[in-house]
């Protein structure tokens, strides 16, 4: 009796949190998903809202007006790749250096990690100046008497590997379906047949849905070309300054978790220090690298404040979907199109986070 009453109290105590999250996360996402299928514009009290199906998504991927959104997606892809490489590389280097039984370890650790305690707004404000073309880092060489540089940093208009407009919805849809299929195969090989079949059906459903509903349309061919915007590198540098300490911290925790006996055994077997890292330590850090990729990757997919504060609202070279969504919805009052951008951001993040969570909790529950 006593026990069941306590159990009931327990459920009652967690209920408010569960209800709030159900509304604020899943209810709101459902609402955004619905809005993305309408033509809802404006802030009026009783707007006229019509259901228009996937038109917003189709517009985002095809119309000349939404060229900016397609540039955003390409910027995000390049930003994510460079940001991951820089953060993982620098973070691992810092962790290995600090793990060498050095003096003043706490001091160095504190320096490398403290940018994590800052707001992206502070980082953006400070690095905006460091990257000012006629000042900042460009004038650093003059300290030792060298001529100043003229790197344009985040205002650079250079595009590399340029290509013309193509049908983005197919690329994006293809990537999502590919992710789902890989996920389904992994589940299948682990013997989780039912979820694997569900993932398979969802991916087939998406393929079918896209084929049926989205007409094969290509973007207007007179639009500017797409490419890798070199200006992105400036954002990558600022973001890496802020986030590489995080990678260092989790690698350091991983290094400290490797028993000294393992290294000792390798040493006895005739490995030198480099070989110990190559054949013993780095393979053991693989799972940590995977979680770092997922955490950093999802941060870079939804990045907003750093770029917005650094480069403002009109710099197409470094624009990202997060900024576009904010401006479209809250400056342009185009809530339906903003919702469509938000849904695409959510799908991109979910594709990497959902398998990660599923995997983590599968391992925990068995």
């Amino acid at each position, binding site marked *: 009796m006593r026990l069941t009453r306590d159990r009931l109290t327990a459920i009652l105590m967690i209920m408010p949190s569960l209800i709030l*999250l159900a509304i604020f996360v899943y209810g709101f996402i459902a609402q955004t998903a619905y809005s993305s299928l309408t033509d809802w514009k404006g802030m009026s009290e009783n707007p006229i809202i019509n259901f228009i199906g996937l038109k917003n998504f189709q517009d985002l991927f095809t119309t000349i007006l939404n060229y900016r959104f397609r540039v955003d997606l390409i910027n995000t892809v390049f930003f994510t790749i460079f940001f991951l490489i820089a953060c993982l590389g620098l973070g691992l280097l810092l962790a290995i250096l600090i793990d060498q039984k050095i003096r003043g370890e706490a001091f*160095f650790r504190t320096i490398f990690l403290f940018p994590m305690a800052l707001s992206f707004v502070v980082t953006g404000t400070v690095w905006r100046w460091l990257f000012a073309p006629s000042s900042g880092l460009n004038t650093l060489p003059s300290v030792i008497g060298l001529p100043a540089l003229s790197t344009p940093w985040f205002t650079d208009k250079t595009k590399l590997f340029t290509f013309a407009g193509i049908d983005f919805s197919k690329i994006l849809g293809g990537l999502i379906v590919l992710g789902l299929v890989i996920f389904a195969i992994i589940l299948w090989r682990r013997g989780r047949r039912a979820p694997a079949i569900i993932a398979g059906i969802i991916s087939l459903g998406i393929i079918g849905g896209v084929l049926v509903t989205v007409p094969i349309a290509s973007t207007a061919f007179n639009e500017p070309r797409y490419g890798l915007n070199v200006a992105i590198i400036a954002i990558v540098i600022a973001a890496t300054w802020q986030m590489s300490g995080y990678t260092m911290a989790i690698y350091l925790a991983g290094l400290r978790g490797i028993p000294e006996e393992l290294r000792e055994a390798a040493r006895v077997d005739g490995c030198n220090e480099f070989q110990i890292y190559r054949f013993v330590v780095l393979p053991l850090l693989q799972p940590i690298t995977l979680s770092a990729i997922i955490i950093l990757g999802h941060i870079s997919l939804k990045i907003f404040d750093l770029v917005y504060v650094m480069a403002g609202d009109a710099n197409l070279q470094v624009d990202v979907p997060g900024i576009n969504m904010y401006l479209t919805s809250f400056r342009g009052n185009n809530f339906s199109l903003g919702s469509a951008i938000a849904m695409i951001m959510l799908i991109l993040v979910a594709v990497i986070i959902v398998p990660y969570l599923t995997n983590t909790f599968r391992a925990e529950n068995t």
Partner: protein
Amino acid sequence: MDAPVIVPIASRPTTARTVGRIKPQRVILYILLIALAGVFLIPIYLVITTSLKSPQEVDLARIWVLPQSLRLDSFVFAFSTLSPNLINSLLLTVPATLISALLGSLNGYVLSKWRFPGANIVFPLMLFGMFIPYQSILIPLFQLLRSLNLYGSLWGLMLAHIVYGLPITTLIFRNYYAEVPNEMIEAGQIDGAGFFGIYTQILFPLSLPSFVVVIIWQFTQIWNEYLFAVTLTNKASQPITVALSQLGGGQAIDFSLQMAGSFLTALPTVLVYILLGRYFIRGLLAGSVKG
């Protein structure tokens, strides 16, 4: 008692200190470390030296030169401009942090010690809430707060931070309480303690370290946040991050004012980090979920 969430970063005992001959590899190691530390500190040097210059003294071509004399003008001006926003940030951050920590602690207690049917599904569904891009809930959130007359006030922003803070606070407490032996709970039940008795007499007194971790983490996150702050507040209720992003813009950018403002904005979280860095790192690592 350590939070079981993560592997604490303990310093290795410095046993291998070679006496006498200094190895060249060690010299290279320290040179590399000092050089990297120097690179990491470049922005800090710029913030501090520039904010101590007067606006007239800031010369774009010679920004790396130390200030002629220490001028606090920019700090005084930044502080007088930003102080209402500093107060807003405090009024927002402190209650939101405490409430989400307390709720997270209760949720963690229920999820670790009173597992109910479906808990294995509910928990990952809760956690998903901390990874979503907040753009995907921003318009409905804005609409809801507007219809509740909370738009433009600190209360609406506070509600948002409490709700979206629940996943991480619940996660940290759940993992922490999971390490408390169930025998202690059973002993409490034999002594006649109920749901609340067990919490207040057994778990809560043990939770101090994870409260520190959670409070530091939430404090830093909410203080530093920008997207909700810029969307859900008006001029009077703007937190510090929004005010900083608009500080010293205009025709001629006042860099010394912006740097002084950055310093003021960063100060609370950096102080917390320097004083309680150990706990800050735990929150950081807990965020990468590893149960």
